[in-house]
């Protein structure tokens, strides 16, 4: 065993297994064998868009300032799936959608997502991309103040924020709250979840963001990955529970195993 680094052998095995599990999960996803539970925040999106129609005010969908190259790319992808769904809802129910953009790389995909939604609902003539998906800025405070400016001008009835968010999350949550908008927030950036959880009417916590994206898109790559992650979480639960019971009985086998 000389070629493997000691203390990391179990980690290595876990890594190899993750590799295989990712393949398996995606394969199951392709065969439609993965079912993801529907989250309450998704039902709330329909309510949010309906509210905007009733009040005659627009809907904001903000996917954050992530890019495809950073480590938060999955959150951006989830945000795009949600944007697509919201575009469908807005086109169908007749609410005006605004989705300001922060990333040059993501913007063309976002436009495609919205266009597809409007097209599928037969409302493509109602979509004005330049007005509804403006590019604000890729710099944090310019982006944040741009959104705040749009918000006080257009007074949205509802706002959906799913994607990676940084320190601007609190500025957004507070401003939209002041404008009386119904807020649905979701991010997997650990540092920012508390603000959405405290201020928003509905919140997607951490990985729920990915699950929501996978549920809405039905993309096997996304659903399969969720399945694979579930297996690992279940493994963590089982190992944790058995390990704690054994350790309480004086047999610290699991934690010893983990340091091989």
């Amino acid at each position, binding site marked *: 065993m000389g070629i493997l680094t000691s203390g990391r052998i179990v980690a290595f095995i876990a890594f190899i297994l993750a590799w295989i599990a990712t393949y398996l999960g995606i394969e199951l996803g392709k065969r439609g064998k993965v079912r993801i539970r529907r989250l309450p925040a998704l039902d709330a999106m329909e309510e949010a868009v309906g509210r905007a129609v009733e009040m005659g005010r627009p809907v904001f969908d903000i996917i954050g300032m992530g890019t495809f190259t950073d480590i938060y790319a999955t959150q951006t992808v989830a945000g795009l799936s949600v944007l697509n769904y919201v575009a469908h809802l807005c086109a169908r129910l007749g609410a005006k959608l605004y989705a300001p953009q922060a990333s040059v790389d993501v913007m063309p995909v976002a436009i495609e997502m919205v266009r597809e939604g409007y097209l599928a609902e037969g409302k493509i003539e109602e979509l004005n991309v330049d007005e509804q998906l403006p590019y604000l800025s890729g710099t944090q405070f310019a982006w944040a103040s741009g959104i705040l400016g749009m918000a006080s001008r257009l007074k949205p009835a509802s706002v959906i924020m799913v994607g990676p968010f940084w320190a601007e999350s609190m500025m957004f949550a507070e401003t939209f709250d002041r404008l009386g908008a119904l807020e649905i927030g979701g991010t997997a950036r650990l540092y920012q979840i508390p603000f959405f959880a405290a201020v928003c009417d509905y919140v997607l916590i951490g990985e729920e963001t990915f699950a929501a994206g996978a549920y809405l898109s039905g993309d096997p790559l996304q659903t399969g990955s969720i399945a694979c992650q579930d297996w690992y979480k279940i493994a*963590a639960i089982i190992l944790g529970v058995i390990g704690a019971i054994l350790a309480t009985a004086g047999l610290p086998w699991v934690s010893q195993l983990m340091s091989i």
Partner: protein
Amino acid sequence: MVSTDVGVWIAAFFTIVATSYAFRDNIFFRFAEYTFIGAAAGHAIVMGVKNVILYGWTHIAGGEPSYWIPIILGILIYTRYHPKYYWIYRYPIAFLVGIGVGISIRGAIHADFIKQIAATAKPLIATTPLGTLNNIIVFVGTVTALTHFIFTYEGIHKGAAGWIPKIGRWMMLAAFGGAFGNTIMTRFSMYQGRIIFLLRDWLGIIH
């Protein structure tokens, strides 16, 4: 004594203007914002050039021609702006993504998965009753929060078992409350530094 240093006056001006936005949007804030964006991008270039020289060029000068490779890759990043040859920029990006992803996931499975399981698999009974209670809360928090994030087995969220993820949700909300409270302090402690700057370095009211 009020400061006589021009630099301190400029800094004080920018400090006050950057604060003003929280009260109301105004043109002075826009001016400060644009200054900041320009300065930050300029600083990034200066540091970029310095790093290229320090970590690339000195190697070449020291007789390691292989360091031409990262320099060429680096230059290729800028092909992304070319209408026809934009795809060349994928080479340096592919390199950066490979190294970045590889380096972060190899540590993640050790520090975030293996080590955290090892920390969970600890005895629940402690020497004091409070210690035992604490251990149980941590254990329950970890396990129930994990169950909350299981999406593909719907049974776990229904019926009597449904209480487990529900407890997890409450534990997480309680934890978020703590995090929220802590963030209030973080932001204030950051701003206090600016107040001290204004009162001490600029106005000279305190020492």
